[in-house]
Structures are given as structure tokens and as C-alpha cells.
């Protein structure tokens, strides 16, 4: 006999086995979805209502602050929220202070949402993209004072030739800022937007963040400095339901539920092993 008890074996399951179970299980659930019911939570509804409550022609400043690493979580949420804005007659100005932002715009807006063909929108009239702007918080602060500093869009078209920018001079002409961010303390973090836009000017601010960032951003939400706060995971599926655009968010819901059940099961097993070993040692 090796002398290892059941509890010892439970505590030392090789990680390869756990990862294999996780991978096989996730693949199975993704290919054969169970269709678990989804309930739209209050936070998701809050962002939806915030956009829904904007009068036609309102100007929304969208900040892409995620790259390829954050795309699986924030990509579906970004797509769903952008669909919602294009479904309504809003003027959408997209900026990014992230070097990977232009790629995300190309993949998600030009490649996936396609506002021109899907909603009959015209680039420059209904929406525009200003490409990458360096400077981080300095640029953010300057934009609040003077949006015209952007100069040209990512195609090199002068700002004066973009009618979507007509009358947009500073923060007071922006009706809502939405940041999609993976940054909890670096460039374009929710804290930066709170400190440079929401606090000094009272600009309405919504944050779509990674699920793990919600505890750090929620104090701003609690004080009303952030008007809406949703995590990408889970909320993207809810938002897809609200705007009737089922996509990746809904596809991932069952898989996420399976993954969490597995994690909970492993935590329970670990605790059983811990308590069992403790009991054996005491005996």
C-alpha cells in the first residue's frame, strides 16, 4: 500500500486532470447548450435604461480600453451595447487610449456590427472613430476641456468634415460616456474617468468592466460617480437578450455555469479532504 488515504488523494488531484475535465466539459456544453434560463439583473437594466432614456441625437462618447486579452469578456458586451446605440438615433463617437483599441474597433464595429449595412448608418454622420490617442490620463483630461484637440479621425479626415462632431466642443456636449475597460489602475481605468470627467464636470459615466474589477469600481458606483456599472461576464448575455441580438454572450452562459459548478465542486472536495485529514489526525 502506498499509505495515501482517500483524503490525501483528493487533496492532490493532478492539475492536468482538472484542466482536462474542464476543457472536455466546456466543449461539450458549448456544442450542446442546455439553455439555462437567464434573468436580466438590475445593473444591466440600468445601463439599458440609461441609453434608452437619451433623447434622439444625443452624443455618446465610447472609450475602447481593452485589447485581445479582454476581448472574450468585453467584446460581446461592447457589441451588444453598440447594437443598442445604433438601434437608436444616437451620435456615437468612439475613441481609444489603448494601442490595441483600433484593432478591436476594426474587428467588432467594421467586421461584426457593420452599422452601415445593418442599420443604414453613415460613417462621419452617425458615428466616427478617432483611432489611438497617446497620453492616457493627460489626453482624457484635455478631451474634457476641448474635444477638438482630436484633430482628425483614424482615416485622416478632418474633424470639421465629420458632421457627427458638429457642436461637440467639450464635456458639456457629451450626454454619456461609456468606457469598456480592462484597466483597473493603468491607462483609461474607470478611476481615471471618474477623476477627470465625472467628478470635476459631473459627466454621466457608465463602466463596462471585467467581472473581477467590479469590487474595485463599485465604490464609485455606490457614491453615484458612476451611473451604471456592469461586468462583461454574464451581463453581455443579458444585454444581448435586451437588444434581441443573441451572440457570443448567450452562447457562453451555459459553459460559464458549468465552469462554476466545477469550481464549486472542487472547492467542496478540497474542504472535505482538509476536514477529513484533520479528523483523522485528531483521531
Amino acid at each position: 500500500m502506498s499509505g495515501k488515504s482517500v483524503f490525501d488523494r483528493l487533496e492532490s488531484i493532478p492539475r492536468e486532470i482538472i484542466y482536462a475535465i474542464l476543457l472536455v466539459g466546456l466543449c461539450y456544453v458549448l456544442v450542446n447548450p442546455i439553455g439555462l434560463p437567464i434573468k436580466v439583473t438590475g445593473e444591466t437594466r440600468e445601463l439599458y435604461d440609461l441609453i434608452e432614456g437619451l433623447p434622439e441625437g444625443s452624443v455618446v462618447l465610447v472609450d475602447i480600453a481593452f485589447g485581445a486579452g479582454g476581448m472574450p469578456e468585453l467584446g460581446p458586451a461592447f457589441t451588444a451595447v453598440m447594437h443598442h446605440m445604433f438601434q437608436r438615433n444616437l451620435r456615437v463617437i468612439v475613441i481609444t487610449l489603448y494601442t490595441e483599441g483600433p484593432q478591436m474597433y476594426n474587428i467588432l464595429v467594421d467586421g461584426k456590427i457593420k452599422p452601415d449595412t445593418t442599420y443604414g448608418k453613415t460613417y462621419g454622420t452617425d458615428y466616427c472613430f478617432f483611432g489611438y490617442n497617446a497620453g492616457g490620463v493627460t489626453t482624457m483630461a484635455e478631451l474634457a476641456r476641448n474635444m477638438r484637440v482630436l484633430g482628425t479621425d483614424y482615416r485622416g479626415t478632418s474633424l470639421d468634415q465629420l458632421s457627427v462632431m458638429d457642436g461637440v466642443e467639450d464635456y458639456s456636449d457629451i450626454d454619456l460616456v461609456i468606457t469598456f475597460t480592462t484597466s483597473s489602475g493603468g491607462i483609461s481605468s474607470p478611476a481615471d474617468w471618474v477623476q477627470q470627467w465625472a467628478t470635476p464636470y459631473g459627466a454621466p459615466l457608465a463602466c463596462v468592466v471585467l467581472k473581477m474589477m467590479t469590487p474595485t469600481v463599485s465604490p464609485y458606483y455606490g457614491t453615484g460617480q458612476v451611473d451604471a456599472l456592469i461586468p462583461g461576464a454574464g451581463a453581455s448575455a443579458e444585454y444581448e437578450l435586451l437588444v434581441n441580438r443573441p451572440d457570443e454572450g448567450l452562447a457562453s452562459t451555459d459553459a460559464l455555469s458549468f465552469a462554476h459548478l466545477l469550481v464549486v465542486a472542487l472547492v467542496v472536495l478540497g474542504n472535505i479532504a482538509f476536514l477529513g485529514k484533520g479528523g483523522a489526525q485528531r483521531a
Partner: protein
Amino acid sequence: MISSDISIWIAAFFTITIMSYAFRDNPLFKFAERTFIAAVIGHAVVMGVNSLRQFGFDKVQAGNIAYIVPIVVGITIFSRYHPKYYWLSRYGMAALVGIGVGLELRTVPQANIVSQLIKAITLGDNVLMGIFTAMTTFTVILHFTFTVRKVHEGPQSVLPQIGRYLMLIAFGAAFGNTVMTRMNLLVGRLIFLLRDWLGLMA
């Protein structure tokens, strides 16, 4: 149907090789890791240079001579690699730090201290949540009050204990959220493999 797009195949290859690290370190993972880092750095350099051109050199060429000042200040940062003129880099760094601190100090006290304090000591619309927030703030502060030892002795020691448990609940929630984010990233890549590459998902 399996994809015939070469870019999808390349992305699938790198996704699988990166994931393979979860099982064991291997040469293919190292290759993918270095390729990824090289691509990110190359991309960032191109974006940075392009930004310099758009907001710096083009402006100077258009006659805005004032833009020479930030360009020169920026260039001084690179002087730290010169054994004799390294001290010049301090001017560039001083400008960066000064502007950063100035921008932050303008609003951080209001955004991070005053607003949070007001929220912690006022009940707001949700009275129960207001009481809970105030109680959490008070008990957690007590937990970290080491200068007054009596707080941690006798019957009143239950208060910092409550603060400790409330912190543990917060850490647990943060851990759960982190797991959910990691799983979501994995699921996102699996959707790419199963749907975009293999065509197994609707």
C-alpha cells in the same frame, strides 16, 4: 464546416499552443509566447510612432512651432542612456510626473476621499445598506487600529473580529469574480476554436 481562412488557422494554432502551458511548459508554448510579445511590442511601437507623427511632427510642419517644446522634452528622457548627459532625462521625467500629479491631485481628494466618506456616514435611500456600509467601514477601521490595544481586548474585541469577517467576505467575492473572469476568457477562446475554426457551433 472547418474554416478555410489561413488567419483563423494561425490564430487557432497559437490559441492551442498557449493553452498547452496549462498542462506543461513546452517549446511550442515558448514560441507562441515570444511571438505574442513581439507582435504586441511591434504594434505598440508603430502606434506610438504614428501618434508622434500625427500629434507632433505634422503639427510642427503645419507651422505650430510650440509643439517643438513637448517633442524636445520627450527626447530628453532618452538621454538617460548617455553616460554624460543622463541628467537631462530628469527634466522629461519631472514634466511627466508633475503633470500626472497635478491632474490627479485636482480631483482625487474629492473622488476618492470626500465622496466615499460622505457615502459611508450617510444612510441614503437604502437605509439598511447605509447602516451596513457604515458598520463595515467602522469595524474594518477598528480591525486595523493597532495603536489602541484595548480595541482588541475584552468584549469590544468582537467588533474588529466582525470587521475581519466582513473583509474575508469581500475577498471571497473578489476571488469568485476573478475566477469568473478567467473562465470567461477561456470560454471565449473555446468559442473561437469550436465555432470560427471547427464550425461545430451554431
